[in-house]
């Protein structure tokens, strides 16, 4: 039997130094660590679903998804087909899976990956291939129980004139890592936003790597964090701008609020730039709620808890975006805190 645990990434690896998956698995001992995940995706008009060969890759997580799943599912949208209805990948809650989603030339698809599990281990490897002129909108929400271990890796390959828009919202778990790896293989446009809201001893990690191979791409990546109690938030972001990727216009931001002294945030925004004519920026702030703004609101009669909630909501929405369903989830979380 393949001993999965020994292969798991751990804090000795630079990319995993703040999210020690191996020791979390050792502590939680999930019994579905080596299990396949049950994934059903129904074909519909303009969308085919087939079983294909697994693709192994970068590390143990992708390899586990490839080897331990019950076969890779490949979803294809033919050229020029523009879907109005989103593809829903909901409640993937136990075991390993690999899914490939390919969007043909000038086609479009939005995918909703909304998950909530009570316990257990989830390792999901999703490979998106977005062909020339196509567009992908991806929305990810995780609302897991405190003991869940969830790793989601999306590898997104964007061909010329593709657009990619992603919004991620997570409330963490024993360990949640949402990793997005984007390869820009032509002049593309990318807008990524994300937020983690964490209480108790929850842990969430948003890791975004963006690789620029060709000239002229535009990328905006903004992540907001809110941590309280003994929670821990991790943000890792990297732009790798290769020599041919001139006129890259890329901005990465991580802004977080620490609501308690016992919470933790680790952030590492990085730029690695080999092209000389680019506009790349990164910013990172970790702060507290603005006490002066709090007093101002209370002076107008707004009770303390409500003033806090309003300020935090505004902080998150400014970065995450105004998607109504997500804003409602942020509000629910805030209601649960006061």
């Amino acid at each position, binding site marked *: 039997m393949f001993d999965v645990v020994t292969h798991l990434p751990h804090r000795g690896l630079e990319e995993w130094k703040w999210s020690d998956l191996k020791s979390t698995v050792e502590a939680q001992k999930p019994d579905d660590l080596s299990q396949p995940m049950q994934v059903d995706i129904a074909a519909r008009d303009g969308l085919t679903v087939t079983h294909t060969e697994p693709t192994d890759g970068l590390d143990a997580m992708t390899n586990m998804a490839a080897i331990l799943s019950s076969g890779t599912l490949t979803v294809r949208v033919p050229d020029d087909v523009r879907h109005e209805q989103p593809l829903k990948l909901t409640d993937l809650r136990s075991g390993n899976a690999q899914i490939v989603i390919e969007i043909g030339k000038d086609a479009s698809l939005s995918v909703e990956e909304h998950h909530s599990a009570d316990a257990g281990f989830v390792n999901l490897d999703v490979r998106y291939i977005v062909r020339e002129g196509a567009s992908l909108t991806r929305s990810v929400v995780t609302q897991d129980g405190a003991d869940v271990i969830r790793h989601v890796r999306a590898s997104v390959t964007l061909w010329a004139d593709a657009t990619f828009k992603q919004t991620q919202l997570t409330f963490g778990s024993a360990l949640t890592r949402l990793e997005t790896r984007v390869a820009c293989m032509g002049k593309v446009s990318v807008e990524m936003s994300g937020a983690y809201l964490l209480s108790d001893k929850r842990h969430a990690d948003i890791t975004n790597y963006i690789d620029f191979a060709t000239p002229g791409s535009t990328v905006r990546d903004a992540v907001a964090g809110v941590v309280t109690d003994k929670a821990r938030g991790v943000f890792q972001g990297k732009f790798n701008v290769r020599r041919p990727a001139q006129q890259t216009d890329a901005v990465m931001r991580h802004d977080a609020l620490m609501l308690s002294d016992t919470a933790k945030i680790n952030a590492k925004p990085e730029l690695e730039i080999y092209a000389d004519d680019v506009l790349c920026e990164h910013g990172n702030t970790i702060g507290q709620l*603005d*006490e*002066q*703004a709090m*007093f*101002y*609101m*209370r*002076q*107008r*009669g*707004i*009770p*303390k808890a*409500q003033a806090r909630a*309003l*300020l935090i*909501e*505004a*902080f998150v*929405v*400014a970065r995450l975006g105004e998607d109504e369903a997500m804003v409602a989830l942020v509000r629910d979380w805030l209601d649960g805190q006061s």
Partner: protein
Amino acid sequence: MLKITNLTATVDDGAKIILNGLSLTVPKGEVHAIMGPNGAGKSTLSYVLTGRDGYDVTDGTVTLNGEDLLEMEPEERAAKGLFLSFQYPLEIPGVPTLTFLRTAMNAQLKARGEGPISAPDFMKKARAIGKQLKMTPEMLRRPLNVGFSGGEKKRMEIFQMMMLEPSFLVMDETDSGLDVDALRIVADGVNALRSPDRGMLIITHYQRLLDYIVPDAVHVLSGGQIKASGGADLAKTLEKEGYDAYV
């Protein structure tokens, strides 16, 4: 009626005394002005009255209509009708002005045991007062005070004050940053709020505002105490002679 007796307040854990035995009474229906040099403790008085953190009251009492203010949280004081027009109004990014104000109004109503104002009634009132203060609908749609000039922020304070109809209002240097036209608009708004049930404390460094809002009494605050009191003409004397006699 606002009654301040022997109020003493410190900062830095008692290391620095800022208000030093200040006593002052503003009866219902009256408008009193407090004037004083920079650093006299005028803004500190406004913050101690409204309950901002960071100030320790080491002696004295403050009551509003007989109720002990110092025991209350800032939001409770607001619900009792105490309003402060800030010397430096805050920007609240991401919170639209009218959302903020409606939340505040309903919170105050709730604290007083009353039901919320309906959305149409609220909007009607906001439009009417906005028009009176010559505010554009665009200003009211923006996040609170974000991107406003100093003068616009002051006007926004008066807008909130007229919407909330407080029973006691404190204005801290509301005139600074206002040009003559804006000053007149603001003064008209304040004068419209004068009523037998409402008290006002107008803090100012210059007497300019008092040409438009004529006070019932003027007090000189210096070194954390009221050093002199008089009628409206005291402001004119101070304007001419400065505060040298009181420091």
